[in-house]
């Protein structure tokens, strides 16, 4: 009777292809850097489609971002980070510029589309000081492209002042569901613990 054996290289190939698939399938990736939780979403490309059309027509396109962090059995909201970015596309340089409107305003220029998307997500990092390392966490990323209103002011008259951006309309935006025609992206991940993230397991 001949005994069949599984060759080791098959096991290794299966492991790496499984891992690659798992990474590819991940929508929202969490990483920790010192006391901050950072986000990346390599499969989310919001600088595409209609927003990109508007950008290539020299318009600026505002995006509303929200990151929500839950713990326990996803019944306890730990953090909610909301901000707005205005993206524009230099017709001659063919590069993107992004401004985070939360005071103090920060702008990054000469970015490729991927770099601009990554910069926005990097700006969404949140402090996780005080969260237990073994506490299961869920995260959700919500991105919505907004229309330009009121003669070019991205978020309506009165939203931006010397003291910064008024967040009330931002809260209103996320309080209502995205319109069918409004480009929006939602990604989720979890449960994952800070320990797992620090050991190298990606969220």
């Amino acid at each position: 009777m001949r005994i069949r054996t599984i060759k080791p290289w098959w096991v290794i190939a299966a492991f790496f292809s499984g891992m690659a698939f798992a990474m590819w399938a991940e929508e929202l990736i969490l990483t920790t850097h010192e006391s901050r939780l950072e986000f990346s979403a390599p499969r989310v490309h919001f600088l595409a489609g209609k927003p990109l059309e508007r950008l290539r027509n020299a318009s600026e396109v505002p995006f509303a971002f929200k990151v929500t962090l839950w713990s326990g059995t996803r019944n306890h909201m730990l953090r909610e980070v909301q901000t707005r970015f205005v993206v524009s596309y230099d017709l001659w340089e063919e590069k993107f510029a992004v401004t985070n409107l939360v005071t103090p305003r920060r702008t990054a220029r000469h970015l490729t589309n991927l770099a601009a998307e990554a910069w926005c997500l990097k700006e969404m990092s949140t402090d996780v000081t005080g969260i237990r390392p073994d506490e299961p966490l869920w995260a959700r990323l919500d991105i919505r492209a907004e229309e330009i209103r009121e003669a070019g002011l991205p978020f309506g008259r009165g939203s931006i002042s010397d003291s910064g951006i008024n967040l009330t309309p931002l809260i209103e935006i996320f309080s209502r569901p995205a319109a069918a025609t409004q480009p929006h992206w939602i990604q989720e991940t979890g449960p994952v613990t800070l320990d797992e993230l620090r050991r190298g397991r990606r969220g």
Partner: protein
Amino acid sequence: MRKLLMSGMFAVVLPVMCAPLPDEPPDQETGSTNVNTRLIVESVQVSGRDRARLSNPLRSDLDQVAGRNFDPPLLERLRSRIKQELHVPEVRMHVAKGGMPDHVIVNFEIGVEREKRFALDLSRFLYHSKQGWSGQGHATMNLHENAFSFGMVSDGDRLSERFAGIQAGFERRHVGTDRLRLRFDFSSFHEQWNQASLLVAAPDEIYRTRTHFSPMATVVILEPLDVSVGVDFARYRLSLPVANTESSNAVVTTLRYHQRWGSAKDAGEHDLRASYSLRAGTHVFESDPVFARHQTEARYRFRRGQQDLAVGFLAGTISGRAPLYERFVLGNAETLRGWNKFSLDPLGASHVAHGSIDYSYRGFLVFYDTGAVWDQPQEREQKQSLGIGCRKSGFQLAVAFPVKSGTVNPVFYAGMNF
């Protein structure tokens, strides 16, 4: 050792030099969020239909943008003004690289109005105390830039006869180019004559029915100037004891000018319309009457705030023997208001000259008309009339008085779109 050191330095410096710019640290700033505001506008263009109707002040404002920095709020305001001034549903702004580095070209594209597949319009409605009711309505069906219309009319105001019947038409608004339109009209009317007209008319002048078929082409020569050329094939049945049908086939040419400065949204608005038309019945088209009818019209309107002033002028002459429906009539709801057209000339005349001034403030209207109709120079007698009333959103209600010695016999009229 030196080689090793140099290699090490290159290994460190080269990747740094080749590193892409994106990683530069973010700026903290409060300036514009649109990176294109650093670019210069090379030129501003307006494309699409009706661009010729833009007022001169708006054109001037558009021209002034060239040479300045790209300013999205300013361009958005201009886009909005174009939309308001032309009453179009959409104006899109396209921005593209210009011919020079760091320059852009801005193009405002006037969107095509979304066609109503089916529309019903009451195009004219009038009550005149001397001439009774007049009305005209039509239904239009639009199919891919082709408009088919069907309407009914009963009009006792415009001509010396009351004509009632049907109208049908086909219009192609775009024939290869926006500058060429084609139109075919068919109409069939029954006539009613006032006793005053019947008393003075020759038996072979009065007709009971008439039908028209008129193909017409309109060419935009140089905006805002256009010309229409066509033929009006008319057949009318005379009221003779022995039924007899005559044809009046006339070449029709109309030259029109329409310019507007400002719009209803602006504080001030000017509007100038002028036209010259020639209708020539000729044996070439086997027309029974041979005639040439020249008519010129001009109307200037000025509005500032709630005040509205309109000055109108009409002159015309007919040589030869034209059918009665071609003759000039004064003394209706639009000319020599207050006079009875049948007392001026019951059959209309071969010559006309007319002027009018209308002034309204907050809908309150006063007007003055003067003019004359005549066949022979010795018959020419200038008439005048005055009137007051109100006008709002196309609706008008007025009392007009002929200026003459003796009795005061006012005329009352009310209606819309006349």
